[in-house]
C-alpha cells in the first residue's frame, strides 16, 4: 500500500471518530500545537525515504482468528459447564454416600443408639454373668474336691471292713461244720434244735455275705462317682481357664473397638473438612469460569479493533495507536484467561486431592469395618462362654444321677450290718441255751462262745461300717447340695442368656455387610467425581489450546506492532494525547481502562479499587 504523508497527516488531525466508532474529543491534541508539529515532523521524518509498503492483511486474519478462538472457547466452556454440572452432582452424591457409610460404620461400633448397641449391651451382660458363674464354679470345684477326698477315704475304710468281716465269717463256717458233727451224734429229737440253729447260722452267714457284697458295690459306686466327679471338677477348672482367656481377649477387643470408634469420629470430622474443601474448589471453578464472559467481551472489543485496523490506512498514526492498544488489550485478555484457566486447573487439582483423600478415608474405614468384625468375634467368645455354662448344666444332671444311688446305698448299709450283727447275737444266745441243755462237756459251749465272739466282731465292724456309710451318705448329700448350687447358677445363666446368640451374631454380620456395601458404594461413587474431573480436565486442555492459538496471534501482532509502530514518536504522542481522554472513549471495562492507562504511563486507583470489590453488592 502506497503511503501519502501529507494526506495522512491531515487525515490524522481531522478524524473525530475513534477506532471504535465513538466520538473522540481531540481538542487537547489540537491545542497542543507544539506537540502536533512535533508529531508532524516525526511523521514526515518517518516517511522521508518515500512511500512504505505495509501488508495489513494481518488485521483481517487476526480478527478471524480471534473470532474463531472466541467461538471455540465458548464451546469448550459450555462443555466445561457440563463437566461442572457433573462435578457438582457427583460431589453431592459422593459426600452423601461417604458420610453415610462412615457414620453407619461408626454406628455399628459405638453409637449410643440402635440395635447393635442393644445387642452389645446384652452380650456384655451375658458375658459378665457367665464369667461370674465360672468363678463360682471354681469355688464349687474346691468344695467338691474336698468331699471327693472324704468319699474316697470312707470307701477305702469300708473296703477294709468288708475284708475284716469276711475274715470273721470263717469261724462261723467252722462252727457250722462242728454243729453238723454234733448233730450226727444225737437222736432225731435232740438234734432238731441244733439243726435249726445250724440253718439259722447259714442264713445269717448268707445275709452277711450279701451285706459284704453290698459294701463292695458301695465302694465300687463311690469310686466311680469319685472318678466321674474328679473329671467334672477338672473340666470345670479347664472351662474357668478358658473363660479367663476369653475374658482377656474380650478386654483387648474392647480396647480396639474403642480406638476404632475414635478413629471413625475423626474420619467423620475429616470428611466434613474435605466436603468444605471440595465446595471451595467448586466455588473457585465457578468464579474462574466467569472469565469466559469477561475475557470474551474483551476479545470482542479487540475483534472490533482489528476490523477497524483492517479498514484503516496503515501509515496513519491513528492506526499505529490502535494497533498498539489492540495488541496490549489482547495480551491482557489472554493473560486474564490464562489466569482463569490456571484457577480452573488449581480447582481441578484440589478436586483430585479431595478425591484421593476421600478414597483413603473410605478405604481406611473399610479396613476398619473389617476390624469391626471384632464385634462378631466378641460375640462368638461370649457364645463360647455361654456354651460352657450350658455344658456344665448338662453334665451336672448325669453327675447328680450318679450320686443319688450312692446316698441311697450308703443309707441302707449301716442298718443292714446292724441287723446281721443282731441276728448273730441271737444265734449265739441260742447256741448257749443249747449248750446248757446238752451239758458242758459238749462242743456247744465252744460253739456258743465262738458265735458270741463273731457277733461282737460283726457288731463292732457294723458300727464302724455304719459310721462310714453315714459319712458317705453325708458327703454325697453335700455333693448333691453343691451340684444343686452349680445347677442353680447354670440355670440362672441359661435363663438370663436367653439372647439368641446365633441370631445376634448373624445380625451383626449383616450389619457389617451393610456398612461394607455402603463403603464400597461410596468408593464407587468417587468414579463419578473422577469422571467429571477428567471431563473438565479434557475441556481445560482444549481451552489451553485455544488460548495458545490466540496467544500465538498476539505474538504475531506484537511483532507487527514492534516492526511498524512501537517507538514511533508520532504514535507515542498520539497515545499520550488519547490517554487523557479515556472517559469519553468506549473503554468502559475496568480492565481495558487499566491497559490504556498503563500505555499512557498513568496509574488508576479507581480501577484498582473496582477490581478489589468484584462480586460485592453495591446497593444504590
Amino acid at each position, binding site marked *: 500500500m502506497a503511503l501519502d504523508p501529507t494526506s495522512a497527516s491531515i487525515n490524522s488531525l481531522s478524524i473525530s471518530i475513534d477506532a471504535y466508532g465513538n466520538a473522540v474529543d481531540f481538542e487537547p491534541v489540537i491545542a497542543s500545537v507544539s506537540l502536533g508539529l512535533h508529531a508532524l515532523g516525526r511523521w514526515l521524518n518517518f516517511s522521508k525515504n518515500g512511500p512504505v509498503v505495509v501488508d495489513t492483511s494481518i488485521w483481517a486474519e487476526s480478527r478471524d482468528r480471534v473470532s474463531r478462538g472466541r467461538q471455540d472457547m465458548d464451546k469448550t466452556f459450555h462443555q466445561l*459447564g457440563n463437566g461442572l454440572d457433573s462435578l457438582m452432582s457427583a460431589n453431592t452424591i459422593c459426600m452423601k454416600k461417604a458420610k453415610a457409610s462412615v457414620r453407619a460404620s461408626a454406628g455399628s461400633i459405638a453409637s449410643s443408639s440402635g440395635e447393635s448397641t442393644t445387642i452389645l449391651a446384652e452380650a456384655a451382660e451375658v458375658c459378665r454373668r457367665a464369667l461370674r458363674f465360672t468363678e463360682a464354679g471354681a469355688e464349687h470345684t474346691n468344695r467338691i474336691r474336698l468331699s471327693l477326698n472324704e468319699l474316697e477315704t470312707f470307701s477305702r475304710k469300708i473296703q477294709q471292713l468288708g475284708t475284716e468281716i469276711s475274715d470273721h465269717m470263717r469261724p462261723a463256717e467252722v462252727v457250722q461244720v462242728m454243729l453238723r458233727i454234733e448233730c450226727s451224734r444225737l437222736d432225731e429229737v435232740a438234734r432238731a434244735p441244733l439243726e435249726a440253729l445250724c440253718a439259722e447260722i447259714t442264713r445269717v452267714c448268707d445275709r452277711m455275705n450279701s451285706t459284704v457284697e453290698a459294701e463292695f458295690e458301695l465302694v465300687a459306686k463311690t469310686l466311680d462317682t469319685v472318678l466321674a466327679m474328679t473329671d467334672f471338677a477338672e473340666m470345670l477348672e479347664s472351662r474357668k481357664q478358658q473363660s479367663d482367656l476369653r475374658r482377656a481377649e474380650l478386654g483387648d477387643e474392647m480396647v480396639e473397638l474403642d480406638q476404632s470408634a475414635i478413629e471413625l469420629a475423626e474420619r467423620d470430622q475429616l470428611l466434613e473438612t474435605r466436603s468444605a474443601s471440595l465446595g471451595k474448589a467448586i466455588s473457585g471453578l*465457578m468464579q474462574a469460569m*466467569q472469565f469466559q*464472559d469477561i475475557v470474551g467481551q474483551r476479545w470482542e472489543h479487540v475483534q472490533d479493533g482489528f476490523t477497524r485496523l483492517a479498514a484503516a490506512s496503515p501509515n496513519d498514526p491513528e492506526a499505529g495507536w490502535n494497533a498498539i492498544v489492540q495488541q496490549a488489550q489482547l495480551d491482557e485478555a489472554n493473560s486474564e484467561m490464562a489466569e482463569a484457566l490456571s484457577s480452573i486447573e488449581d480447582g481441578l487439582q484440589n478436586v483430585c486431592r479431595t478425591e484421593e483423600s476421600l478414597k483413603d478415608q473410605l478405604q481406611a474405614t473399610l479396613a476398619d469395618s473389617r476390624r469391626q468384625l471384632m464385634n462378631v468375634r466378641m460375640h462368638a467368645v461370649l457364645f463360647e462362654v455361654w456354651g460352657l455354662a450350658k455344658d456344665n448344666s448338662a453334665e451336672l444332671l448325669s453327675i447328680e444321677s450318679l450320686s443319688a444311688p450312692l446316698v441311697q446305698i450308703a443309707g441302707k448299709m449301716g442298718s443292714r450290718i446292724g441287723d446281721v450283727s443282731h441276728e448273730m447275737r441271737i444265734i449265739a444266745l441260742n447256741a448257749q441255751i443249747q449248750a446248757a441243755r446238752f451239758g458242758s462237756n459238749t462242743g456247744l459251749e465252744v460253739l456258743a462262745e465262738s458265735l458270741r465272739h463273731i457277733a461282737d466282731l460283726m457288731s463292732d465292724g457294723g458300727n464302724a461300717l455304719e459310721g462310714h456309710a453315714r459319712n458317705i451318705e453325708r458327703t454325697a448329700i453335700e455333693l448333691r447340695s453343691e451340684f444343686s448350687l452349680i445347677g442353680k447358677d447354670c440355670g440362672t445363666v441359661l435363663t438370663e442368656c436367653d439372647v439368641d446368640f446365633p441370631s445376634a451374631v448373624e445380625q451383626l454380620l449383616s450389619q457389617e455387610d451393610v456398612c461394607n456395601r455402603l463403603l464400597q458404594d461410596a468408593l464407587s461413587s468417587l468414579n463419578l467425581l473422577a469422571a467429571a474431573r477428567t471431563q473438565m480436565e479434557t475441556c481445560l486442555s482444549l481451552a489451553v489450546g485455544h488460548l495458545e492459538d490466540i496467544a500465538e496471534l498476539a505474538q504475531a501482532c506484537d511483532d507487527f506492532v514492534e516492526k511498524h509502530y512501537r517507538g514511533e514518536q508520532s504514535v507515542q504522542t498520539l497515545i499520550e494525547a488519547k490517554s487523557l481522554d479515556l472517559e469519553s472513549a468506549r473503554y*468502559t471495562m475496568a480492565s481495558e481502562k487499566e491497559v490504556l492507562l498503563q500505555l499512557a504511563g498513568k496509574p488508576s486507583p479507581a480501577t484498582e479499587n473496582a477490581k478489589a470489590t468484584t462480586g460485592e453488592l*453495591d446497593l*444504590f
Partner: protein
Amino acid sequence: MAKRIITVDDAATMRRLVGYTLRGAGHEVLEAEDGEDALRVLAGQTVDLVITDVNMPNMDGIELVRRLRAKPQFQSTPILLLTTESDPEKKKQGKEAGATGWITKPFQPDQLVAAVAKVTGL
C-alpha cells in the same frame, strides 16, 4: 424461603453459573438471553428478583430495567445489574433507570447468595 429469580445474560456460561449458585441455595431460577427475551419470559408472571447483565444484544440491561420499572408489577421488584462494567457513568445510568444494586463480575457463589438474601429480605 425459596425465591423466584430470573437471570438475564447473553453468555450461556454466566446464566448457568448464576443458575447453579442460586438453585444450590434453594431458589427457583428462570433464564433469559437478553432484555427482549426477559420481557417475553416475564410476560404474565412475576419474580422476586431480576439479575441482569448490562451489555447484551437486542436490549441491554439498562433498558430492561427501565421497561420493567414502567410495569406496575415490577415497580418494587429488586433488580440487580451483574456485569463486567465498572464505569461510574454506566452505574449512574443503572441507578437512574431504577436498578436496586450493582455487582461486578466475577462473583463468588456465596457473595451472590448473600446479595440475593439482602435484596429479597431473606
